[in-house]
């Protein structure tokens, strides 16, 4: 009996793994397409229909390139770097609930397996821990390359990730206070009704979390560890072939996982409005097993819809905003995001005391009002056209 559940779990994990890799591969294609469309171009469209074979072509190219290790590099760490990056990226999706559960009959016994790698009662902490390890891949690789640009990139990555992890953790704490649990599944179940999605109860926390997620994924506007204009390629300057491929791939997996994490924490995870009604109607019409499974499939698909939106959002921002300067990055992290998230915790705590869930809006409203009044009062900036 245990064996059946174990093998079902194994299949779910395998499927999620394959889906993660597929999505990461097609994110590279999507990134190029999104970039092209935002810049009035067409993007890759030669390999297959709409260029859908492009990831395969890219992978083929990566595999057949020369795998070069610099003579003065420390060889084992040079190899370890991309492996660590990939490992930590793949590990983090294990605790995200992708749907309710799957029911099936085996040997006349019915089973119910949750659609999740593993249900941990410290799911948030697990992801947080794995994310905090993600920087090792970059640091080890950057140091082992024995190249000044790589080292600078690695150091930037380290300080950036550590700085933004604090604000990331503090912005989650507000949610944990509201849910009272570290388990991702109970956080999702807490957001059952649409207006209790955490994005509506925690707008400020959401913005802070989103910003920090961008910084943790090393995505524009926080892609200083690999900024071409200053550091050639940053930490992966010396990398080539599939090692470079691993680094780039890990970035896209991180993007996928953080999109999933954002959807789970703030956008109700696999929940959608009228989910329970749809679920019970399906179970009534199609039976407890098929109906339930179809309801789960709908949740799964909608959850991925949310994830895809956030992946697109990552790309959208990348092709909109220029890179921050390093001091701006540090100022934003330490002087704005951390105090704001602490304020958010305090306000949320006070709100919980008086059973008022939407307390976080107070800060948001105060900030908006302040911004509007100061803008109205301020003298107009002189942006006049110069007339000779």
């Amino acid at each position, binding site marked *: 009996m245990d064996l059946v559940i174990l093998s079902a779990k194994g299949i779910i994990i395998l499927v999620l793994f394959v889906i993660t890799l597929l999505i990461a591969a097609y994110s590279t294609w999507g990134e190029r397409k999104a970039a092209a469309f*935002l810049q009035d171009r067409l993007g890759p469209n030669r390999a297959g229909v709409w260029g859908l074979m492009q990831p395969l072509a890219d992978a083929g190219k990566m595999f057949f390139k020369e795998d070069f290790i610099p003579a003065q590099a420390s060889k084992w760490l040079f190899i370890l770097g991309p492996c660590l990056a990939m490992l930590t990226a793949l590990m983090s999706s294990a605790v995200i609930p992708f749907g309710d559960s799957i029911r099936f009959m085996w040997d006349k016994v019915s089973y119910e397996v949750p659609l999740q790698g593993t249900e941990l009662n410290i799911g948030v902490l697990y992801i947080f821990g794995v994310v905090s390890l993600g920087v090792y891949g970059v640091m080890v690789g950057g140091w082992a390359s024995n190249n000044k640009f790589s080292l600078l990139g690695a150091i930037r990555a380290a300080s950036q990730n550590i700085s933004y992890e604090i604000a990331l953790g503090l912005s989650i704490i507000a949610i944990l206070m509201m849910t009272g649990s570290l388990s991702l599944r109970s956080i999702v179940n807490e957001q059952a009704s649409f207006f209790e999605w955490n994005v509506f109860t925690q707008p400020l926390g959401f913005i802070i979390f989103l910003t920090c997620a961008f910084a943790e994924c090393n995505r524009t506007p926080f892609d200083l560890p690999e900024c071409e204009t200053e550091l050639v390629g940053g930490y992966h300057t010396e990398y080539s072939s599939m090692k470079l491929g691993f680094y780039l791939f890990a970035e896209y997996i991180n993007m996928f996982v953080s999109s999933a994490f954002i959807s789970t924490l703030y956008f109700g995870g696999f929940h959608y409005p009228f989910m329970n009604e749809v679920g019970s109607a399906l179970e009534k019409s199609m039976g407890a097993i098929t109906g339930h499974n179809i309801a789960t499939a709908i949740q799964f698909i909608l959850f991925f819809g949310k994830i895809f939106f956030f992946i697109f959002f990552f790309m959208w921002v990348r092709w909109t905003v220029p890179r921050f300067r390093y001091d701006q990055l540090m100022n934003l992290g330490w002087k704005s995001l951390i105090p704001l998230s602490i304020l958010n915790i305090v306000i949320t705590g006070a709100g919980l005391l008086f059973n008022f869930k939407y307390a976080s809006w107070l800060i948001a409203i105060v900030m908006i009002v302040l911004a509007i009044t100061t803008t109205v009062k301020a003298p107009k900036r002189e*942006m*006049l056209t110069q007339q000779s």
Partner: protein
Amino acid sequence: MQLTNRAKQVSNKEMTLAEKMYLPAFFSGLGITISHLFKKKVTIQYPEVKKYLGPVYRGHHVLKRDEQGRERCTACGLCAVACPAEAISMVAAERKKGEENLYREEKYAAVYEINMLRCIFCGLCEEACPKQAVYLRHDRMVPVFMERDEVVYGKERLVEKMDDRYVRANNSEVKATPTEPSLTRAAT
């Protein structure tokens, strides 16, 4: 000095809170980029769709024949002298009896070669030619080559085919300056 009237005076005033918050500007930027998602794409799918490059485009060279199909080139070498990239070389030969229907003048180019790696498509050969023999087609480009021995174009690829004659569009933009009154560009 002012070159355009689009210059903007930038003020260095202290930013207001809304500007410091970065988010309003950020969202307006997102709005601008997303609006481009639905705009018409400017890409031309090159090998399938070719853009008309205009009547003055300088493309593939062609050694013209006259109305009776005789080669006009007389191997004077002026094009080779004019060529700044020294891409043109030729060997002259004397016309034999019975070849009057092949070559217009008594002297002709037995070998006429243009090195397409050297050619910069400046069109000076066309201007230098006293016999209106060499032209740079406005409607065809030199194709991409994969091998180095494909690069030097000999007469077999330069001389105009009778079934594929080159007529330059006679429009007002192109000012033809005929050196031979009977053989204006329009006449070919």
